[in-house]
């Protein structure tokens, strides 16, 4: 994949200077490849600046304000951050969010790995069909997939009603719905596509002759997997973990529908501040804290895996 004909020809052609065929402003642009590239991407960057960067700056600013009746007191103060630090509720919910997302990430990556491995190594025809089949459920509404799990896990849901009509249990199993377990299961299901695709891509990229070399040098299937395949698929594992861990930490739909009081996460608290509680500065503060935590954990995770990888390889 990395050496498709187009890219090779591109690489070959790049050093040659482009003939400047026109004068004036467009000629200048023609001459300067860099300027043309920037010009072309500038609408997208402008939009993202207006849609992401500026809102984020305002969010940080607002976290330093305080709510006052229906308006804001705009004198900068760190009172919200102090409140977040001092009130145990915020820390507890943040910790629980990271804990639940962590488990959901581990479950998703561990369950998806064999699946991606199977398609990369053992499916030879219809690979595309398998990939489309695996990613298709992901394209339906997130809300509907969560709703589906509510139907499956509910007090009178699919599992409980099936077990009861089969006579295996008398009362509904209560630990299924409205618990952190339900949130972990639902998240693992809803985000599976985000694990399968990066894992598949990294496994597919592995040079098969390395596996043959390992076998020729006397490695059995297990040793070969842990010494060659797995280390080489680590970029996929890292990408999958981050792609699931980061967005799920801020989720509030699944906890709201399936979590119950013990399964609420920091996203629910942020949503409450912007809704019923109407304390936007506090909500902004919690959102910033969530971002900082995620960035820190992602950073630590990437550095650690890099160190481990350097040791192994």
């Amino acid at each position, binding site marked *: 994949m990395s050496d498709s004909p187009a890219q090779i*020809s591109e690489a070959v052609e790049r050093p040659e200077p482009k003939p400047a*065929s026109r004068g004036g402003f467009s000629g200048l642009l023609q001459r300067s490849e860099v300027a043309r590239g920037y010009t072309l991407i500038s609408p*997208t960057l402008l939009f993202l600046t207006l849609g992401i960067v500026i*809102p984020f700056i305002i969010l940080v600013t607002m976290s330093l304000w305080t709510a006052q009746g229906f308006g804001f007191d705009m004198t900068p103060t760190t009172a919200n951050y102090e409140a977040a630090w001092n009130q145990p509720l915020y820390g507890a919910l943040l910790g629980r969010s990271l804990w639940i997302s962590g488990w959901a990430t581990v479950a998703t990556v561990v369950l998806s790995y064999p699946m991606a491995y199977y398609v990369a190594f053992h499916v030879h025809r219809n690979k595309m069909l398998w990939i489309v089949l695996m990613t298709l459920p992901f394209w339906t509404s997130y809300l509907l997939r969560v709703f589906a799990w509510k*139907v499956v896990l509910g007090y009178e849901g699919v599992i409980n009603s099936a077990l009861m009509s089969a006579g295996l249990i008398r009362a509904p199993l209560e630990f299924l719905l409205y618990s952190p377990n339900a949130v972990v299961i639902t998240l693992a299901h809803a985000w599976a596509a985000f694990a399968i695709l990066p894992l598949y891509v990294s496994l597919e990229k592995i040079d098969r002759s390395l596996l043959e070399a390992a076998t020729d040098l006397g490695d059995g299937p297990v040793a070969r997997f842990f010494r060659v395949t797995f280390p080489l698929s680590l970029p996929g594992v890292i990408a999958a973990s981050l792609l699931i861990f980061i967005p799920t930490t801020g989720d509030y739909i699944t906890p709201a529908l399936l979590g119950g009081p013990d399964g609420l996460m920091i996203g629910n608290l942020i949503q409450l501040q912007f809704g019923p509680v109407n304390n936007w500065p506090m909500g902004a503060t919690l959102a910033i804290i969530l971002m900082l935590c995620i960035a820190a954990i992602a950073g630590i995770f990437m550095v650690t895996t890099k160190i481990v990888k350097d040791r192994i390889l």
Partner: protein
Amino acid sequence: MSEKNYINRPNRPLQIYAILFLIFLYVPVLFLPLFSFNDSIYVRFPLQGFTLKWYGELFEREPVWNALMNSVKVGIATAICATGLGVFAAKAITRYRMPGKGPIVGFVMLPLVVPGIIFGVALLVLLSQMGVPLSLYTVTIGHMIVCLPFAIATLLPRFEGFDGSIEEASADLGENAWWTFWRVTFPMVFPGILASLLLTFTISFDEFIMAFFLTGTEPTLPMYIWGQLRFPQEFPSILALSSMIIATSFVIVFLGQWINRDAAFGGPKKGEKTK
């Protein structure tokens, strides 16, 4: 390549696992259509009997149709804008040397790895400080942010998959940049553009988190469903509505993948066929 050498020989347990995994992926989602035909107000086993009344009930509801129209409007606007920006970005990323290309690509893909709630509240705060009222327009802006990485990821392999020297040939033969794009680049990347339009429409149509913070008085379809989920007696008709959404999403996405099949997922790049 021999398909049955000692590394690639079929692995029965892994195959069974893969099939179980697919079942796990689909079964919860497929329960929604199953129960939508169930002749009972309760969503539970045993099934009672086949009925279409939940669908019939849905057709008589005015708010559902309004919400549907809102979602379609937002979806079309989002698809066109996000794909348009995506084409610019994908061409710039694949065709030109740019210092700082890595960080730019990272920035463009940022919405994939930042929780939606952060973007939602950040945009909400900005718009309210600017005094912009929440409406379908604000939802569209939010959806464009969510959709942009998907549009670019769909378009990039298309732009990478064809030879840039064809564009250069066109330029050498005297076409200006716009005509080169229109007569050479556009037909080549057209399947990617179509796929991107379909996928971003689907994502926008199904999107909930951004819409939750940015919707004004006119709800999108997911927002309408969210409002109805509080009432268990509404479950059956929501099941019917969900089933129709799922069916539509599946068809659109499958179509998108099929149209763009040569370029999808960095698969083998065959010679380009013009369709």
